[in-house]
């Protein structure tokens, strides 16, 4: 019994501690705290570039030849950027971060979380973020938005970095005269920039714009379609013809339940009644249920 009480106490203390800590969601970094500084000073020095240009280097004793030095320098700098990015992501995810995202993220919210798409991971994270962020009065809860959106932003930054890393790895497969260190440095700069919040927000917004273009195709796809012979179509046609009141009720329902651009860009009630697209079939079923159409 004594031991059970002790265990419970330890657990309570542990949970209490976790609640107060600046929890970033990342495991502790096993590297010594000075590792990053050491690597920075060694691999971002003029000495390293001189070594590369000379094709030999006393400070990198096991390497000979420009390509070997290039590979070592590029891979190590990538590692440094990875470490920097991880620290940055930890700072973002921490409970008491000091980084202000300000207008960028608010703008992203106002651009419409619902309209934002992207990689499935980003989409899922943003979808999860949308709940509860917009208050009943339409105001954006910035604190909640920040907490819930960070995973999406970090996911986008990681995706952006992976793209640049793929370019660098492809470059390293080439001989030095085709992918010299000077060229690799440009890609390394791109890698560093790919981990920025601005870049991630810009890409997410760009993807949202792309989604809008796709949506326009959807409208155009709906310009030509087969007549629906489903029971739901027949039911709604008959109900609408029965009275003007029914038509007005259906119009009100349509405005509340159809996608916003369907309402403005598609002929009503023709599309709802007659389009044999499965989406419209689902809409009809919902209308029949919501309006108790028989």
């Amino acid at each position, binding site marked *: 019994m004594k031991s059970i009480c002790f265990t419970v106490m330890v657990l309570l203390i542990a949970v209490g501690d976790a609640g107060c800590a600046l929890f970033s969601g990342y495991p502790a970094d096993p590297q010594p705290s000075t590792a990053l500084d050491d690597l920075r000073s060694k691999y971002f020095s003029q000495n390293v570039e001189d070594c590369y240009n000379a094709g030999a280097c006393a400070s990198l004793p096991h390497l000979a030849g420009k390509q070997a030095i290039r590979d070592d320098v590029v891979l190590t700098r990538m590692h440094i950027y990875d470490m920097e990015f991880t620290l940055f992501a930890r700072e973002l995810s921490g409970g008491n971060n000091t980084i202000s995202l300000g207008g960028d993220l608010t703008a992203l919210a106002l651009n419409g979380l619902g309209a934002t798409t992207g990689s499935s991971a980003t989409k899922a994270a943003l979808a999860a973020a949308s709940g509860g962020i917009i208050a009943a009065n339409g105001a954006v809860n910035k604190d909640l938005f920040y907490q819930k959106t960070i995973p999406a932003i970090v996911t986008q930054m990681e995706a952006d970095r992976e793209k640049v890393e793929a370019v660098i790895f492809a470059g390293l497969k080439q001989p030095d005269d085709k992918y010299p260190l000077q060229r690799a440095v440009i890609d390394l700069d791109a890698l560093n920039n790919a981990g920025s919040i601005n870049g991630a927000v810009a890409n997410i917004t760009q993807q949202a714009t792309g989604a*809008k273009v796709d*949506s*326009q195709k*959807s409208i155009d796809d709906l310009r*030509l379609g087969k*007549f629906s*012979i489903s029971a739901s179509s027949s039911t709604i046609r008959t109900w609408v013809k029965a009275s003007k009141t029914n038509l007005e009720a259906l119009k009100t329902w349509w405005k509340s339940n159809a996608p916003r651009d*369907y309402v403005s*860009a598609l002929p009503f009630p*023709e599309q709802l009644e007659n389009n044999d697209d499965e989406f419209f079939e689902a809409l009809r079923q919902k209308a029949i249920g919501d309006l108790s159409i028989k």
Partner: protein
Amino acid sequence: MVCGTFTRTKVPAADVQNVIDAYKENDPPPTSVISKADGAGTFTVVATWPDCPANTTHSLAGSKAR
């Protein structure tokens, strides 16, 4: 605002007038609605609104549900 042309194909003869009427219920109504037999026992109904303005975007917020 509805613009351009919308076409409904494979409309049974008995439903052609329903489709025409449904198009005409739109606000604003189409500038013209015509029906034509397709040679397979059904009809094609074409409703025309004024041309879409250049740079029209149909940002379809809910289309992702499809």
